[in-house]
């Protein structure tokens, strides 16, 4: 078998490479045949290769043997050597037969040897090739296994990254939702503040005109006072001026205007105080909270949102303090109450009850709105879940509530039957330790 290096430097096996007679048939193969030929009557029997070199020879010295027979041997049609037989004179026809027999035997042996060699060659080649291919496959598998392992490791990291991003995005959305309800509140409050401010401003304009009249009248008196007397003409003028300036009316109106303005200013002051209390702008951290007061505070800031036909009933019980961030609690109450207001505009009845139960403060908001269908009740706290029309809410309101209550280690539960309203039950742990 020929081996020649290929580009990759490993061995490549070539099938059916050229073979000489010596490659195919050996002295050991030939000797028994030659002995048989000698036994049959030949004196000398030789097999030589293409260049005349003896491969195998049998028999004594050839000097007195004169008769000779030759048979050429071929490999794949190509002359490859030959057989020579020498015998005693006069045995030609006998030698002829021996030569034919020997030729047939050797050719048969060559054929079967060649066949065996080719079979071995192809078999070895295929085996080697398959082995190399297996090694290569194995190498590739090893690489891909490594890649998959890396991929799996990366995947875990990627999932963590994405989860973190999602958490952040959700937190941002929750924050936005909080701002949204505050925004709604702010719009209402702006309206509330604008009303008194409007008439305070208008009163002040009127008062400025009144002041002009007072000044004019006073200057008239002052000039007369300097001369120490009024002429008859002046006395008449004073009368006309007083009437022209409508000072009787002005004097009677001025206190009303001031009183109304003070009322208006007081209303604005109260609204700001409520808002400040609701937002707990001064209590940035955890403090002891009176939950009943916080509910009142919340109701106060959204008073303008509550229609006249609505009835809010408060069934408060004496409560122990609880330690938390009051601004967060107000946000919860605000969202629940706004929800109830949205559930029914006319004839809403909202019952808010509070009581202390086994270490928890239980706050119940029961409305008589349209309720929540059974099919969705388990999902209402999920982010982005909404039954409102597209564009009117992103479905985060109750998620914000759930989020805040969880952060306070409390719980929220809802019961509802369609058409009969919804009841939200909030549990907040009482007591606890405040930082201060």
């Amino acid at each position: 078998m020929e081996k020649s290096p290929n580009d990759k430097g490993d061995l490549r096996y070539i099938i059916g490479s050229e073979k000489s007679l010596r490659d195919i048939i050996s002295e050991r193969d030939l000797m028994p045949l030659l002995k048989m030929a000698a036994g049959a009557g030949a004196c000398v029997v030789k097999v030589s290769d293409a260049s005349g070199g003896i491969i195998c020879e049998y028999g004594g010295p050839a000097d007195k043997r004169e008769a000779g027979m030759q048979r050429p041997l071929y490999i794949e049609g190509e002359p490859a050597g030959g057989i020579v037989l020498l015998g005693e004179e006069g045995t030609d026809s006998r030698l002829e037969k021996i030569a034919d027999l020997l030729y047939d035997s050797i050719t048969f042996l060559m054929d079967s040897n060649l066949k065996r060699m080719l079979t071995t060659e192809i078999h070895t080649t295929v085996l080697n090739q398959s082995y190399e291919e297996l090694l290569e496959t194995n190498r590739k598998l090893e690489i891909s296994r490594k890649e998959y392992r890396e991929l799996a490791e990366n995947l875990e990291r990627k999932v963590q990254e994405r989860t973190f991003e999602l958490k952040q995005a959700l937190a941002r959305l929750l924050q936005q939702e909080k701002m949204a309800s505050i925004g709604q509140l702010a719009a209402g409050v702006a309206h509330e503040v604008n009303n008194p401010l409007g008439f305070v401003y208008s009163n002040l304009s009127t008062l400025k005109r009144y002041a002009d009249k007072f000044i004019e009248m006073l200057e008239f008196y002052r000039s007369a006072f300097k001369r120490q007397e009024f002429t008859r003409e002046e006395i008449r003028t004073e009368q006309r001026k007083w009437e022209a300036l409508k000072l009787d009316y002005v004097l009677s109106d001025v206190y009303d205007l001031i009183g109304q303005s003070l009322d208006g200013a007081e209303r604005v002051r109260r609204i700001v105080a409520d808002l400040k209390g609701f937002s707990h702008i001064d209590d940035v951290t955890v403090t002891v909270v009176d939950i009943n007061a916080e509910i009142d505070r919340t109701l106060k800031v959204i008073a303008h949102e509550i229609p006249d036909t609505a009835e809010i009933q408060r069934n408060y019980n004496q409560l122990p303090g609880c330690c938390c961030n009051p601004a967060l609690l107000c946000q919860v109450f605000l969202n629940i109450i706004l929800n109830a207001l949205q559930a029914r505009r006319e004839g809403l009845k909202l019952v808010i009850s509070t009581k202390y139960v086994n270490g928890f403060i239980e706050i119940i908001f029961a409305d008589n709105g349209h309720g929540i269908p059974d099919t969705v009740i388990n999902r209402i706290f999920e982010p982005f879940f909404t039954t409102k029309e597209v564009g009117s809410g992103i479905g985060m309101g109750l998620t914000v509530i759930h989020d805040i209550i969880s952060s306070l280690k409390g719980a929220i539960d809802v019961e509802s039957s369609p058409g009969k309203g919804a009841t939200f039950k909030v549990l907040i742990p009482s007591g606890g330790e405040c930082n201060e």
Partner: protein
Amino acid sequence: MIEYDEIESRMVLKLVYYGPALSGKTTNLLNLHEQLEKKGRGDLMVLDTRDDRTIFFDLLPFYIVSPGGLKIKLKVFTVPGQVKHDATRKAVLQRADGVAFIADSQVVEATNNSQSFENLESNLAIVGLDIDTITLVIQFNKRDLDNIIPGPEVERIWKPTGIPFFYASALEGWGVVETFKSLLELTYSHIDRRYGLDERYGLDMETFIRKLTNIYEPGQAG
């Protein structure tokens, strides 16, 4: 790919009969063996088979000497057609100087033909040969059967490729020598360009083909 020994004035050429299982590659060689004169060739060597299916290869060797003394050994191999013997096909295909693709003309064999042709293409690439440059002829065998791809269809597909194609029935013995001759012509042209067979060794194409395709006439001395 040609094995050429300038000092020894010796050249070994390798031709491969490729194609799907049971398309008649061995039958082609058997038929050549039968039709061509013994002079100038060796015996067909059929390695062990299993259920009469080639598992290794068959080998039909030729040997000629040019007027200028160049000894040329030509070895014609078949490959096993069965898909599972791909490693053997690759081994046999190595260093081939020319390929005869024996296709089965039966309509139902169309897929097998094209799969085998694709296999030839990829195996050639694996052993460092190129389907576009290697000497290649195609034989549509089994033309004696019914339900075969019609001639116009074959021509429509293969004429534009420029690859010589032949119709044959290896069983009936026609088209086989023509295919072989065409393969020899292309092979001759290829090596003559490179080694100057005519110029240096006085071996023109006609002589080359004639020496390798002496049709055996009964009664003529063998």
